[in-house]
């Protein structure tokens, strides 16, 4: 088996939007439009979220700008019964699974109730402890295999997550048990201030698959078609042959790590520059213009429509009633034990209320 190098990079659409049409034959025009719509929506929602944060109307939050293709492409590749285990920078993928924009605002605005995954989304809530949810993806895949359910499971996490012990243990389990699971790594080249080459001494992330006897692939993460085709193919392989995969999405974090971060402390404009030309949204737009009669009018119309959706979700968010302070006791256990009842009661007394 040959080891992957940096030269291995699956791409079907170049930064100019020129695509290998034969390769993408299986993606209908409607699906291509859906991809664009979701990517654009993700970008607009993300932009809005950043601006709300600056105004103090949202809390700390991680921008997904630059990673819309890898997000939307992998999300759309999932089947309805497949499971998805996201990290914390996957709004685009979450939208493909039916996540409500208002709920995301609610959660990142500091209200846990926004974290509830939509009914039947087969999606875990956001995972913030880097890498640890890969084990959960493995467990879901074990459950599916035990039950004989023909589904696949996909996790998503960053290049930084590949340094965690849980990454290793998860991929090893997947290899040993031949699980229907696909581990997607969003290689956006940074883990806060740590660049990829200080995260690992390997040339690629996909080559790490060799340590687990599983399949490793390396994809242009800014090419939504390449992302979609690869993830779909490997999810199929997982579902039908119980072959697990590690997929490296080569992309870039265009913004600060989060709104609490100031990336200028550790990276220069020269580093980002080359990636601007590879923008995933622009790339797909160019393709649509060349191949599907997309134009400025349609663009303006779409943006207006999606912007209105985003604005509506902001209004809905801001109209949400505050959680009652005792909400913090909810869902700690299926049934509230005495010590929490006591503490809840104390809280109510503090608030001058009586037991609810």
């Amino acid at each position, binding site marked *: 088996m040959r080891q992957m190098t940096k030269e291995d990079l699956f791409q079907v659409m170049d930064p100019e939007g020129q695509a290998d049409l034969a390769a993408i034959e299986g993606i209908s025009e409607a699906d291509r439009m859906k991809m664009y719509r979701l990517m654009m929506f993700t970008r607009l929602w993300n932009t809005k979220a950043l601006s709300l944060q600056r105004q103090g109307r949202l809390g700390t939050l991680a921008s997904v700008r630059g990673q819309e293709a890898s997000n939307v492409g992998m999300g759309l590749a999932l089947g309805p019964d497949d*499971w998805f285990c996201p990290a914390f920078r996957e709004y685009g993928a979450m939208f493909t699974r039916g996540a409500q924009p208002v709920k995301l605002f609610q959660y990142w605005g500091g209200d*846990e*109730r926004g*974290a*509830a*995954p939509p*009914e039947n989304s087969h999606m*875990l*809530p*956001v995972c913030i*402890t880097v890498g*640890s*949810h*890969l*084990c*959960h*993806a*493995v*467990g*879901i*895949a*074990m*459950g*599916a*295999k*035990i039950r004989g359910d023909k589904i696949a499971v996909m996790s998503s996490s960053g290049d930084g997550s590949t340094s965690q*012990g*849980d990454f290793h*243990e*998860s991929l*090893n*389990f997947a290899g*040993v048990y031949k699980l229907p699971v696909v581990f997607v790594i969003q290689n956006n080249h940074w883990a806060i201030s740590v660049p990829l080459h200080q995260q690992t001494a390997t040339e690629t992330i996909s080559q790490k698959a060799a340590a687990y006897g599983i399949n490793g692939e390396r994809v242009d993460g800014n090419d939504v078609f390449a992302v979609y085709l690869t993830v779909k193919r490997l999810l199929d392989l997982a579902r039908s042959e119980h072959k697990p995969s590690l997929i490296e999405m080569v992309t870039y974090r265009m913004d600060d790590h989060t709104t609490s971060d100031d990336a200028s402390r550790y990276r220069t404009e020269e580093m980002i520059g080359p990636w601007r030309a590879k923008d995933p949204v622009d790339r797909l737009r160019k393709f649509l213009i060349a191949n599907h009669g997309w134009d400025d009018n349609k663009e303006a119309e779409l943006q207006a429509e999606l912007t209105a959706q985003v604005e509506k979700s902001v209004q809905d968010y801001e109209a949400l009633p505050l959680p009652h302070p005792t909400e913090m006791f*909810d*869902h*700690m*256990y*299926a*049934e509230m*034990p*005495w*010590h929490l009842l006591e503490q809840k009661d104390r809280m109510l007394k503090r608030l001058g209320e009586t037991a609810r």
Partner: protein
Amino acid sequence: MARLSMVEAINVTLHELMARDERIVVLGEDVGKDGGVFRATVGLLDKFGPMRVIDTPLAESCIVGSAIGMAVYGMRPVAEIQFEGFMFKAYDQVYSHASRLRRRSQGVYGVPLVIRAPYGAGVRALEHHSDAPEALFAHVPGLKVVIPATPSDAKGLLTSSIEDPDTVIFLEPKRLYRLFKEEVPEGDYRVPLGEARVVQEGDDATIVTYGGMVSVCERAAQHVASEGVSAEVIDLRTVWPFDIDAITKSVTKTGRLIICHEAPRSLGVGAEIAAQVAEKCLLSLQAPIVRVTGNDVIPPLSKLEEYNYPDSEQVVRAIHETVQF
């Protein structure tokens, strides 16, 4: 009813529960072919096959992490950690996820997971094989901690733990695994979580204990009985959230409290019991609260092992101390 040791009772319980609930899956190091280093899972692989009795790679974090995933998917995983001293490799999965996913998902997902581990000293074992870390789980919001003291309770509590919708850390005192046998109810048998057992009634002092220390305290109570002192012995069974009513009721009656556990003294479960009593029934107390516990040390190897954990003599001395105060 059959006469069973604790480890046999656990084994029988797993056999029975797995037969009636397809969702139950057992996983861990050496739980399959080998039947577990203490034989707790013996026979399960033959009966239920490798899909439900899973020998895992040597990776505690993913044993617990994957069990969490299975639980979310609707299974009822029973994960074995080979010895309590290796639970810390999985501590993040327990602390950050098992205890939190219900709330993080706002009740959409629960984690009905049981993590079993042989627990405590008394079998002349190696380092990391004699620890008593229950407090480190009890302090984590969202968890339950159970430690049985008899074969019957092991069955009844394990059944309730596996049926519980939340994560239960189920610690099995190694020293009791084969110490004695007793009649264990056949078939369906539950001991509800959160309910203590009054092992012996008494009026002069309350001894709150659990796990391997229950019989130690029982012996002490019998000893002082011959001196005319009547000590009430309470076995918590569920170590957290413990049965506060049983404790306060007894202390209100006796006015004296002795707490006994083998775990390190400081910030142990005994500290919380003392704090609760100092808050809820201080005026009933006629003597200082005494803790008889393991020391704040690394549990010593076999040569000194017995000196670290409480024995009946120490408990007797503690009873004398409080009663004569």
